[in-house]
């Protein structure tokens, strides 16, 4: 044992002599990491990426990225004697003849789904808590780029096996490239080495999938984590937590054990899932042949919304001067919408701070209700995404519920304009009512569920003041005054040139902060505290039994859960 201890001590010394690393270790082994379940989402993404690297390298050892035609002669009897590309044949080989091959393929595919799903949910967490605000705007952009590269990498990956599904996906991708104005046809011919499908594409895509994009993702993840490390993690509001501190568990040992353990949990679950649930059974789709397509087949979930946008689009195509074709039916859903969406997401930190005028540094997270407009924008965007995603499954909806395609498509064509704004409005209202409840809690305390009958015969409910922890959370809300509109003209009647933009900005700012319920003032809080104190010691007898027999009053049903007041108010 002591040999090991000595060994570790001298290793730290050895490294320090050469890298002067002891200072770094001293400072950072106790580095504090805040703890919250939602902080695990980014970890899942990171661990999935590591699993993708491991399983991906394994697959490269058996996969043959070649479109050369071969006759299949492996142990999957149904396809014996069928002509197919080497890529597809080697995927069958991995699935049926290499021990553990199918497992690795399925681990790779499940991990890909987890990777993109966890990035997306992680992004929602960061958005709704305002973690993207200064100083973390740049990391938000890196995160957005990770989502985009992840989607591209996933699409490249499931296009490699050259099965019927992936071939169909590539054909559609080629059609989209071809629809790009001016350059499209040329780019498509360069990518595919001639007309679709050519002989080269799988090999080219392979380099992109195993080298180019993973390298990019790795670089982005490195930058992402370095920034998180250096800027330190944000934390949720709570007692003792301020903008100037970090409260949590030390890297060594707690965080290391939890995070390290969590890697194995993610890996273990991915492996179990891959053992038990088949994913992408390419042998059932068969090899890609250009005159076949699998009806009702679906791309991976992260492509669904793009597919849905393409399906939803009316068939607008413009002929320019009888010489050129502008395929709006493809450009709008496949280029313009994703382009605008991702640009909007990437720039959101700057857009928001321009509108709000908030240039302060934030390390304490917002509660989503305290930024009603932001939260509503997020929910509206998710609703928009959801509509596109539904549209991507319109054939499944049609066959499951026997509704005609036309009906679904037309309903969704309207819904895409109606549902997101509705979601926006409802969410904003909901946030405000949550704010109002917080406000009431501060002033009137928590409802105990105990009913008081006054000598006058009137009933009231006893309120108790809320816990310090809850108060700290509620009081974390920051009330901000919207930006004032600049004067249209100065005292001498000269027009203010900055006035128009300024007024637009002021209008947006008012809109953004509009439905805010301000925190009570110090005086109000003081008065409330005294009042609650008084009520708690009220001399009026509490009517226990009678109240239990449901007393109807003031429109509501009053109920006394009993003296402990614990189970109250959840009827």
């Amino acid at each position, binding site marked *: 044992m002591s040999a090991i201890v000595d060994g570790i001590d001298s290793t730290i010394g050895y490294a320090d002599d050469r890298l002067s690393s002891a200072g770094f270790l001293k400072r950072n082994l106790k580095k504090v990491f805040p703890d919250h379940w939602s902080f695990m989402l980014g970890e899942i993404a990171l661990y999935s990426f590591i699993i993708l690297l491991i399983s991906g390298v394994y697959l490269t050892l058996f996969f043959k990225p070649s479109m050369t035609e071969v006759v299949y002669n492996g142990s999957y009897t149904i396809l014996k004697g069928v002509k197919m590309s080497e890529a597809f044949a080697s995927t069958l080989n991995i699935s049926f003849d290499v021990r553990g091959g199918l497992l690795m393929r399925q681990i790779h595919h499940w991990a890909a789904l987890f990777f993109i799903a966890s990035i997306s949910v992680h992004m929602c967490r960061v958005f709704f808590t305002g973690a993207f605000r200064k100083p973390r705007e740049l990391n938000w952009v890196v995160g957005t780029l990770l989502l985009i590269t992840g989607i591209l990498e996933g699409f490249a990956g499931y296009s490699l096996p050259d099965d019927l599904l992936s071939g169909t996906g590539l054909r559609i991708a080629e059609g989209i490239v071809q629809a790009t104005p001016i350059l499209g046809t040329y780019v498509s011919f360069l990518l595919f080495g001639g007309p679709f499908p050519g002989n080269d594409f799988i090999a080219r895509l392979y380099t992109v999938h195993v080298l180019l994009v993973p390298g990019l993702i790795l670089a982005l993840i490195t930058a992402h984590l370095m920034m998180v490390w250096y800027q330190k993690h944000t934390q949720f509001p709570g007692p003792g937590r301020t903008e100037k501190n970090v409260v949590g568990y030390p890297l060594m040992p707690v965080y290391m054990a939890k995070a390290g353990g969590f890697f*194995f949990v993610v890996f273990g679950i991915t492996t179990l899932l891959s053992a038990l649930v088949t994913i992408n059974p390419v042998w059932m789709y068969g090899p890609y042949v250009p005159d076949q397509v699998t009806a009702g087949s679906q791309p991976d979930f992260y492509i669904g919304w793009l597919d849905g946008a393409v399906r939803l689009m009316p068939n607008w195509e413009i002929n320019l001067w009888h010489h050129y074709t502008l395929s709006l039916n493809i450009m709008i859903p496949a280029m313009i919408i994703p382009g605008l969406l991702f640009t909007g997401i990437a720039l959101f930190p700057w857009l928001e701070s321009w509108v709000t005028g908030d240039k302060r540094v934030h390390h304490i997270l917002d509660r989503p209700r305290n930024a009603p407009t932001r939260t509503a924008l997020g929910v509206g965007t998710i609703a928009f995404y959801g509509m596109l995603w539904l549209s991507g499954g319109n054939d499944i909806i049609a066959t499951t519920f026997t509704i005609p395609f036309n009906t679904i498509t037309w309903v969704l064509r309207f819904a895409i304009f109606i549902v997101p704004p509705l979601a926006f409005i409802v969410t904003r209202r909901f946030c405000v009512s949550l704010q109002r409840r917080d406000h009431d809690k501060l002033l009137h305390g928590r409802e105990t569920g105990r009913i008081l009958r006054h000598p006058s015969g009137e009933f009231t409910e006893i309120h108790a003041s809320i816990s310090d922890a809850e108060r700290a959370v509620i009081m974390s809300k920051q009330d901000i005054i919207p930006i004032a509109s600049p004067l249209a003209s100065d005292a001498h009647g000269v027009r203010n040139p900055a006035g128009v933009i300024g007024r637009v900005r002021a209008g947006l700012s008012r809109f953004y902060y509009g439905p805010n319920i301000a925190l009570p003032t110090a005086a109000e809080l003081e008065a409330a505290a005294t009042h609650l104190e008084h009520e708690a010691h009220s001399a009026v007898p509490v009517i226990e039994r009678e109240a239990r027999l449901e007393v109807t009053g003031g429109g509501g049903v009053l109920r006394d859960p009993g003296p402990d007041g614990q189970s109250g108010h959840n009827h």
Partner: protein
Amino acid sequence: MTEHHSTDVDHGHADGLPEHKLRRTDVFPRAEKRAVRQVAAMFGLSAIAGIGTIAAFFAFPADRLITVPALGQMSAQNVVVGGLMGVSILLIGLGAIHWARKLMPDHELVQERHDLDSTYADRKAAIDEFWSGAEASGFINRKIIRRSLLGAMALFPLPIIVLFKDLGPMPGTSLRHTIWKAGEQIVTDPQERPIRPEDIPVGGLVNAMPVSLRKLQDKQGNSNEGVKSVIVLVRMRPDEIVAQQGKNWDYQGIVAYSKVCTHLGCPISLYEHRTHHLLCPCHQSTFDLADAGKVVFGPAARRMPQLPITVDADGYLVAAADFAEPVGPSFWELG
């Protein structure tokens, strides 16, 4: 390990942090012992499952199938090796987390954040350094050098881009033609049987292709021509045909249309013979084959190109010419 969470860090309550709550394992030695046993058991089981994985790898051939309740027939290798390996990996993780939660110190620590921005003096010094360096280089004053450098830098990527030119040939007119030509025999796909008009009943659909396609594809080693030249033949009563793309392009009510969707190129063969609608499974574009292949629904903008057909001397269906319109997805130069 000794207790490390000593005084310098454990100032919980003083900072307004919620009071630290003791865990059962902090209070009861029995609970602590139990937690230790649990963690060790998980690690131990993980090792056993790991060895089991290796054994299962050798025990099951790659192609043995087993029936798993509720999941159906599956590869035995995959289920057993994967299952054991998954359990083995998972238990390491669960053990470590259990260890951290039950036995490692659970006092929250407080650390100061340092401001990210440097002092004003440092920032100013950095800016000054930059400008004095820029000044010293002459980049600012020596206009000629600056401009010529910027010009060279702007050009620098161009040769590299041009080097990618030989990735592929130029499109030329290849998107406008297929291998169909007058007299090219129409054969069934995939059986490659010649077709007589009588072979197709009214309401029927036949997938078909040019007779020379297979040979050409084998020679070229790709399916570039097949992607464009596959067609469907459908027969309707001549009076059902509302319009065609050319006069008498049908043969006795048999019409031939490309089966490559004009939207994004999926091959189509879902045909509804009562309505004469051809439905694309990819994005549901629908074409009316009785009415010159026009788009009746969906995102496709162009009608389905029609192939003029006739019969040869032996009475087999042949093409009368190539398509008059480009087949497949639109492109910029289409016009």
